[in-house]
């Protein structure tokens, strides 16, 4: 493990944040974190201090509530980190746009599509959708299509019956 990544792991474990280590070759990221909305800003500050940049902010409408997904990565080393935060009962979550300026438009976009309120966001007006469609929330699923949070996390692909040659090498 890269020394800077080790530093990141110790810094996070000092804040008693649980890191689930993943197989990068399989999933495309190294760590997976579930966090309470209350600790989000503290976590983002920590990420900034560890010189991680914000890749994107996105949303996912799953059964209990909307999950906001953040991905952080580093320019200096191969280290990607996925953070999932569940919004509270008012569909609200604290903003990190004052910590990462790049989150500003991502959060506006997420508000467009899911109606999530980012608390203390400086300018939470529609970015991508037309101004008159403030309350459209087009990516919210209807009750037939919605799935459990666990069901969409990571689905391990079942071993397919392979050809004989492949089976031999296995």
């Amino acid at each position, binding site marked *: 493990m890269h020394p800077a990544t080790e530093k990141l792991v110790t810094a996070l474990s000092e804040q008693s944040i649980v890191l689930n280590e993943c197989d990068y070759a399989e999933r495309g990221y190294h760590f997976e974190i579930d966090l309470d909305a209350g600790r989000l800003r503290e976590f983002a500050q920590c990420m900034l201090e560890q010189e991680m940049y914000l890749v994107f902010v996105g949303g996912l409408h799953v059964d209990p509530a909307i999950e906001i997904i953040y991905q952080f990565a580093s320019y200096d080393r191969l280290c990607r980190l996925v953070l999932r935060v569940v919004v509270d009962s008012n569909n609200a979550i604290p903003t990190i746009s004052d910590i990462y300026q790049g989150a500003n438009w991502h959060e506006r976009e997420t508000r467009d599509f899911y109606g999530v309120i980012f608390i203390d966001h400086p300018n939470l007006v529609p970015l*991508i*959708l*037309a*101004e*008159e*469609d403030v309350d*459209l929330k*087009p990516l919210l699923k209807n009750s037939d299509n919605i799935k459990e949070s666990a069901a969409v996390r990571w689905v391990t692909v079942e071993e397919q019956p392979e050809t004989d040659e492949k089976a031999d090498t296995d």
Partner: protein
Amino acid sequence: MGDQERGKLGVHSYAAELQERLKRGEPGNLVVRDPGPLFQNKIADEIFNLCRANSLWPMTFGLACCAIEMMSLGMARFDISRFGSEVFRPSPRQSDLMIVAGTVNKKMASAVMTLYDQMPSPKWVIAMGNCAISGGPFAVEENYNVIEGVDKLIPVDVYVPGCPPRPEGLLEGILKLQEKISGVRHPFPQRKMSDAPSY
């Protein structure tokens, strides 16, 4: 420009009109006033229509991937200038043909309507590609931001289907429009490809 001025950058002034047209499903009456020409004469009209048909000036206006085919039509291989339409104008004031080349989404629709308004009369519209005709692949139940057919916003003269149409398809559309304007297909005949000298 202060913050109050910037606050005016809210909803486009055509947003309400856009909603009405979408609800109606047709463009409706767009004209504020039309006193007609000062002098009208049948022979003069025929001459002018022949001239208009042979010098259609399209607007430089691409909305999606169909615009690539439109550009291709303007270049040497397909050469729209054989039919007098090569002068793509950057301003609606100077153009009389709007080729709606691509997907019109809700945010762009107000701008399309404004641009159509700003073109001087007489003006024509070609809806190019399936998106501009009917929404194409976006005409599904979950669609929330694509206008399903530009003919709900502005009157369309010629529809050119395809996804995207070949440049020859658009060329045929322009020829059809010329036929519609002047009453004659191909008013000034072109030389056939087989007669062209080989270089």
